[in-house]
């Protein structure tokens, strides 16, 4: 009931004064969703914050410890290392899909027969079940029997250990992530390309511009807002990437590919240290929000409505 009171002023603003009696409100439509959202989204958050302030291990008594769990984070080498892995993984997993996705969008913007069907094929990697994908990639990365080393040998490159070596595990996982999520960038940029008017290209052609010049000086500036949205979404997803990493390496070898999300899983559901795990969850969320806010600040406010789908 509390939430109804909170949001009610907004509803009152919407109904023109004096008309409330004739116009019954839309609240009954929203209340069930509100209850569910409170129960499964808001409650977990409030409870997580509360747990993070406690020493809370499964099977031991719960004691209030204030911010001790948070103080532990900067001195926990495994957490610090996980932050580093997350940054590298995220930076690569944003940049590469953006580049390939933009190129793919330019191609899919052309008209050719079978475009719809081929677009369907192209987006299959992002819709397929991540665990199933991860399983096949694991086989492909196999140092002796995997097809990846065979492909390398075809172009004369030496075999690699891929996800089985600390030095190559993150780039290999980024390869999977890029393969998987380039289609999403492509779709967003494709939407951007569709919104560009044709006139600038016509006048550029008359002035003798070539394909690259037109792309660099007309297309790129005009699709920049869409690239930004795609980058934001990609960043949020890459930071919290879990399925692929967990199913292929479980954070290994050693802890070479352990990101914050993977470490969070270990702390909460392997060591059952729920208090500390909650603190990681809170800090993790704050980090994501700060990153997103920072990007938004750099890009000005107008884009917010677009990523929020009308928020």
């Amino acid at each position, binding site marked *: 009931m509390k939430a109804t009171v909170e*949001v009610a002023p907004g*509803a009152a603003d*919407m109904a023109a004064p004096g008309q409330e009696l004739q116009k*019954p409100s*839309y609240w009954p*439509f*929203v209340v*069930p*969703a509100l209850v*569910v*959202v409170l129960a*499964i*989204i*808001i*409650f*977990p*958050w409030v*409870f*997580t914050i509360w*747990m993070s302030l406690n020493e809370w291990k499964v099977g031991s008594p719960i004691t209030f410890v204030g911010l001790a769990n948070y103080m532990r984070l900067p001195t926990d080498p495994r957490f610090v290392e996980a932050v580093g892995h997350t940054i590298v993984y995220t930076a690569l997993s944003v940049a590469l899909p953006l580049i390939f996705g933009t*190129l793919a969008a330019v191609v*899919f913007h052309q008209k050719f027969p079978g475009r*719809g069907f081929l677009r369907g*094929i*192209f987006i*299959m*990697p992002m*819709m*397929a*079940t991540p*665990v*199933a994908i991860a*399983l*096949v990639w694991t*086989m*492909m990365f196999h140092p002796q*029997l995997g*097809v990846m080393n*065979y492909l390398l040998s075809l172009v004369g490159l030496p075999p690699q250990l891929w996800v089985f070596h600390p030095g190559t595990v993150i780039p290999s996982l980024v390869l999977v992530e890029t*393969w998987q999520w380039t289609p999403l960038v492509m779709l967003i940029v*494709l*939407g951007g390309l569709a919104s560009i008017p044709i006139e600038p290209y016509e006048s550029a052609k008359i002035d003798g511009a070539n394909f690259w010049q037109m792309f660099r000086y007309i297309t790129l500036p005009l699709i920049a807002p869409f690239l930004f949205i795609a980058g934001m979404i990609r960043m*949020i997803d890459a930071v*919290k990437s*879990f399925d692929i990493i*967990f*199913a292929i390496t479980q954070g290994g070898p050693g802890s070479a590919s352990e990101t914050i*999300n993977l470490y*969070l*899983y270990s702390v909460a*559901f392997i060591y059952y240290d729920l208090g500390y795990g909650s603190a990681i*969850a809170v800090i*993790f*969320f704050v980090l*994501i929000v700060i990153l*997103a806010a920072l990007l938004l600040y750099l890009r000005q406010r107008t884009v917010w409505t677009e990523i*929020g*789908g*009308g*928020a």
Partner: protein
Amino acid sequence: MSLRQILGKIALWLSVLVIVSPAILFFLWMLSLSLKFEVDNASYPPVFIPEHFAWKNYADVFASNRFLTYFINSLVVTGSATLLAMLIGVPAGYGIARMAAHKSAVVILIARITPGLSYLIPLFLLFQWLGLLGTLVPQIIIHLVVTIPIVIWIMIGYFETTPLELEEAALIDGATRWQVFRHVALPIAKPGMAVAFILAVIFSWNNFVFGIVLAGRETRTLPVAVYNMISFDQLSWGPLAAAALIVTLPVLLLTVFAQRQIVAGLTAGAVKGG
């Protein structure tokens, strides 16, 4: 001039080929792995099309004692979570769109940004206290975290584009809000509902992280079951690849046949589950 056009066509088709081949080759390789006997899967250089197809890999998967259970679990979890999300989310999307309560979308944004694991810690404890852990109920409930935001998000966007005139006319004629929703707004919104339904099904079906924490031996969904095959039961690639393909096949078929709706839904809200 016409030579230029021909060259342009060739260049276009070459680039299309380059762009689509990573996806096509991957799934063909998956199919190939699933249809080969151990000898062929272990040979170097790799065999792409084997002399003898190992159909028995698929038979093995279906014959394995629990696969059917896991398949039914997946159907129940995804089905319930999607239907509940439609029941709750479609009216909510309508209400939010009509009240123009755009700020409420912030909650959905939070749900979008939050890592799935964060929900799991408190809800895991809650389900434990409620004694629900041996059943499918916790997974159905937690899948709502994925499906409800998708449905609300897409329906807000859709109802905002549907015309108000008919609804206002019906209200003037004395219809109640509910009647207007049921008989005027809902029939127009069917394409939007299809988009929401398809995306909710896909992201719920694919979800893995909720299952590994909440599912017991009897309550695993297919992605969790496949993951467990890697770690415990199976070491041979053929049946593993076959199982992986069976798990993801419904989603792949949906993607190809409903790509128009999926593209519309993804570009409208750019949502992704979990």
